[in-house]
């Protein structure tokens, strides 16, 4: 069985069914998930949707990565992609 993946900044990130985006990105070795609208690095902190530090965009919609299950072939982008497009 091939593992499911979603795209984060265009790169495939594997995940297990039911896993949150934050868990999958962390397992992939990422500590920061790009920038937030205030220009600060987003990151996992409280895990329960309270600190709002792990916001990402899923198909354009801003969500907490720690609450949102990863979806096969979904597109996840940093909350704010303006400042760090390479």
């Amino acid at each position, binding site marked *: 069985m091939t593992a499911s993946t979603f795209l984060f900044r265009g790169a495939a990130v594997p995940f297990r*069914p039911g*896993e949150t985006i934050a868990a999958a990105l962390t397992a992939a070795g990422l500590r920061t998930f790009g920038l937030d609208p*205030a220009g600060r690095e987003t990151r996992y902190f*409280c*895990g329960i949707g309270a600190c*709002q*530090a792990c*916001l990402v965009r899923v198909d354009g919609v801003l969500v907490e990565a720690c*609450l949102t299950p990863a979806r096969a072939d979904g597109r996840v982008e940093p909350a704010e992609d303006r400042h760090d497009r390479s």
Partner: protein
Amino acid sequence: MTDPDLLVIGGGPAGIAAAVRAADAGASVMLVEMRPALGGAFHRRPIEGVEPWPIGREGERRWARLDEGLVRTGIVPRLRTAFLGLDGAGAALLEDRVAGRVEACHPRAIILATGALESVRPRPGWHRPGVVTAGGLQVMMKETGRIPEGRILLAGSGPLLIALAGQLTARGRPPVAVVEAADPFTEMVAGLGLLAHPRHLAEAAVHLGRLALARVPWRRATVLEAITPKGDAFEVRLRDRRGRRTTLEVDHVALHDGIRPNDHGLPAANETPGAGPIVVSAGDGREVLGVVAAEIDGERAADRALALIDGRPEATRDHLRRLARERHAQAVLARVFAPARPLDPLETLPDDTVLCRCEGRTVGDLKVLFTGADTPAGREIKLTGRFAMGLCQGRFCAHWVAEASARLGPDAPAPRPRDLTGDRWPARPVPIAALAAVPDAPKR
């Protein structure tokens, strides 16, 4: 959508117990949970194919009973559904994140069972990516069964640190150390109070036994002073009871300084029939008394809500007695885990220490606000200083900013955390399109 008698916000033990109790009494119930699964912090469910985290036989029995209640009453929880707030007309706005839309719901009563939030005291470096809350680390472990690679340090204060350290050790991944600001062993007199609460004592004994076997240092009366990035790792500085400083190199830091009700941006309690929906709080979101109390309090809250909307009798005397017992246990734990030495006042931390994580506002930024002729009030600290202004709306800094401000401006009334957070909702992102599409639901 049919409007229920009772809307329960939060699918932890308090919310599930409340929902089941109300349904057993014949009320129609809607139970909503923001995460993809029920459980709450203690009973958090693993993802498919992962073994449930060991929570002890008694904990497993309690979960089985809650689960059985849901099956018996036929309550189907609405998962991934966030409560946004009450609108001006008293409608509860629910964001269905699966369907991507916001719905208005008109229950007769609402039970808020949103659980607890961790307190994390600011210290230099606490805002760095890779520094998480102990609860945040636990969420990931319980859901995914995975523990992050590398050396883990647990620091702060409170029984959760020991519990988490014991769980990590049981999984063969003991933390480098547990740094605890209190000195529970010297609080013998306070600790004797725990003899009346064998459940807590037994739990502590299991965890401490595991730590002792694995030779994990429990560094009591010690504080984590600063976290400095060092390559991909962190150098942390500890200060012990005699003021001696040592450093450690670790890969992950999990901080925890106790828990408090997660009551941010929620509507106020309303026990007046006819003045909008009845609103009753339950569980740790009302008062932090722990997982056993949460179930008891959920049942109490359900009884209360149904008494207010239908005049049903409340059978709560036994509930209140059992809650009082849990309250006593928490009071003992609070004494046992009181800091061994006074913690450094926040305004004495280095000026570049971040207080407001979202806006990156620092101790130095706060002090500048207090250099003018007039001492700023809480609202000015927010509006001019931008403290508690960011995405989390002060959930993680309002208490600390209020505490430091009270000391920086002793001539003025101390600002309350609420002056900084305000009462605005929603306190999380909602797509404007989803919010704009809320239908005008029929009035009951």
